[in-house]
């Protein structure tokens, strides 16, 4: 990868044209040069809400947990810059009409969040049976980028393909997006499944995730936030930290800790145990997040 050269060449060319390009980049370009955040901010990661899941033994408050999370986020001392849902908004159904009912039900509750911007991403339960068709009707594209205070956010879709592949077309899209960035840029990748082989025995992997990691590795300030495994988990691949978030319907066991992956039953002595959300905080002048985990109570 030769992203720095490409960008310099682009800057040189843009310089002939002058001011328009520079003003178009705004504060993002300035912060991107240093690989640090322009201004303090935090966002909220919510994940794996599985709206439509019904099993009293696993979560007797299956209709109330997401609403509790919405209330808890709204009660934060200050509002987040934005909110990200990292997939599995709804629970699987083979019926396309019911899938839309569930996505619609989820959307109505999420609409109660007090945030300027909410970013949605699909999980395999939402998107793998129809290649993301219903998800797109409700929430738009399954992959996208946006910038905030010098941080370049990339939402990657590794679920619309039922084989859990990112796919060559999306990898080319990713490579093209990264080509425009300085290697110092602070990049935050949002995805549903882990990009690395966390525990393939339980399908906790992305078939071609290594290709995405390879594209990201030349960048020095990359962080990945993902869902899928319904528990807090942290892992480095080279210089890239990966952080999994807790879910909002049922927790899952630690990788390989039991013979068969299955939701952890509800503990009446500790209701909502293992469920929660996360607040990644970016501090001006720094290139890593500090993470705050919030339980559901």
């Amino acid at each position: 990868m030769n992203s720095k050269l490409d960008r310099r060449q682009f800057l040189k060319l843009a310089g002939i044209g002058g001011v328009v390009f520079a003003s178009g980049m705004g504060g993002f370009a300035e912060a991107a040069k240093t690989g640090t955040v322009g201004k303090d901010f935090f966002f909220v990661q919510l994940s794996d809400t599985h709206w439509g899941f019904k099993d009293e033994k696993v979560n007797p408050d299956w209709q109330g947990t997401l609403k509790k999370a919405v209330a808890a986020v709204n009660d934060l001392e200050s509002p987040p810059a934005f909110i990200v849902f990292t997939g599995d908004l709804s629970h699987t159904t083979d019926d396309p009409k019911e899938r839309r009912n569930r996505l619609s039900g989820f959307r109505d509750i999420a609409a109660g969040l007090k945030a300027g911007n909410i970013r949605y991403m699909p999980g395999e339960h939402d998107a793998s049976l129809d290649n993301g068709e219903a998800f797109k009707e409700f929430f738009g594209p399954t992959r996208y980028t946006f910038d905030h205070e010098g941080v370049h956010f990339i939402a990657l879709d590794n679920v619309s393909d039922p084989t859990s592949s990112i796919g060559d077309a999306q990898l080319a899209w990713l490579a093209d997006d990264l080509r425009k960035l300085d290697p110092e840029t602070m990049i935050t990748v949002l995805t549903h499944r882990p990009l690395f082989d966390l525990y393939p025995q339980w399908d906790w992997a992305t078939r071609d995730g290594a290709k995405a990691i390879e594209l990201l590795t030349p960048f020095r300030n990359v962080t990945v936030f993902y869902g899928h495994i319904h528990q807090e988990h942290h892992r480095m691949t080279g210089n890239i930290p990966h952080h999994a978030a807790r879910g909002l319907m049922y927790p899952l066991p630690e990788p390989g800790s039991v013979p068969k992956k299955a939701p952890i039953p509800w503990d009446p002595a500790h209701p909502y145990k293992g469920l929660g959300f996360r607040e990644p905080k970016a501090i001006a002048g720094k290139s890593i997040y500090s993470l705050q985990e919030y339980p559901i109570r």
Partner: protein
Amino acid sequence: MRSINRLRAVSVLALLILAAGALVPVAWSDEPETIVRVTARKFEYSPNEIRLKRGVPAIIELTSLDRLHGFDCPGLGLRTDIPPGKTTRLRVVPDKSGTFPFHCDVFCGEGHEDMTGTIIVTD
């Protein structure tokens, strides 16, 4: 110059043979191959318990009765897609004994996560 080219050709051939060996989990053996037929459908494998012997070559023959499924056994380094209407064969010579779970790794519907099984390899 001709001998250098020949050396290069031999090196390339050797690398290709090594690479092929690394990709296909097959070892040459005089033992007859065991054939295990497995049927996949929403949301089960039949049988879902496969018994193999360590060091004995086997062929796992997979067919799907409905839609695309997957067969992934990371512990033995085996995986394939199982498209319907086609027989898919996996050749294996287990080099270790133990119990190795396998699962469908192509998301196939409401019962997908229960579509699992085990390969038991004995000495």
